[in-house]
């Protein structure tokens, strides 16, 4: 998968779960081992994305960490607040 496809996957998962889908943004950083996807949502929606005991965040991570990037780097997801 390409980075753009992962970004798209994150948006597809997150947007239906928030009240303000237009405020969802995914940025990107990388180092030698990881590609970091940085998710930011409207301040009102941060709780929805993290969930009780971080369960929603955990589930999103489980799904996207399974992704294999073409560059063989691992995927990481940061939720910005």
């Amino acid at each position, binding site marked *: 998968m390409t980075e753009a496809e992962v970004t*798209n*996957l994150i948006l*597809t998962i997150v947007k239906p779960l928030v009240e303000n889908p237009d405020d969802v943004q995914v940025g990107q950083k990388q180092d030698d081992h990881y590609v970091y996807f940085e998710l930011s949502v409207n301040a009102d929606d941060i709780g929805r994305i993290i969930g009780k*005991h971080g369960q*929603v965040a*955990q*589930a999103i991570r*489980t799904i996207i960490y*399974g992704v294999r990037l073409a560059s063989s780097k691992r995927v990481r997801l940061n939720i910005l607040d």
Partner: protein
Amino acid sequence: MPIFTGKNVDQAVTNGLATLKLEKSQVEIKIINEGKSGFLFFGRQKAEVELIEKIVTKKSTSKKIVDEKKEENVVSKPLTAEEKAARSQLNEKAVHDVGYYLADITELMGIDTEINVQFERRQVTYDFNTSKQGLLIGKHGKSLNALQYLAQVNMNQKAVSRMNVILDVGGYRKRREETIERLAIKVAKDVIRTGETIQLDPMPANERKQIHFYLARNSRIKTTSIGTEPKRSVVVAPKKKTH
């Protein structure tokens, strides 16, 4: 999905399709009662069928299907008492939307799949028919459970009443359940035979619950759980004699 009745099976299906405004090719038909013509008034039974809508994703076409279906759902008219019908309509729309949510995600994950939706009272099952089962299930169902959780969260936001969401891949849940039951029975036997306490491997909450459930009836052992998620595990111990 709703159940429809008619004089015979064909009639019941036709009624159902007319109500749902769907084509025969878009549903899976499950016959609940074939119906009997009976003798005079005795033993006459209406045929009952359950219609299960199929959601099919094929890479390029899925977006189109989403739009069409959404329209259909808005058009379809409720049948019975207005409020109740409005609620169940909203719930059905939620079932629908969550189905497409799952279809969109799996498509982006590179998993081509057909999703069969079964909707009965408070429980919705999305059954995935795919050639990439392993990818969708993950190790010990990790991916499938994560996806199920997200679908549940999405459902809770959309549906009016509380609905339980289950994702299944070609009978995976059933197979896993049978495995867990066998494990529970085996462990119970070992504990009773040796009189020693056994701690099982870490398992997700629903699987621990199954073990507790299977062994609750057994008066010679007791079960507890120790550790913290996600490494919480069941402990099966012999029950101390009370006298």
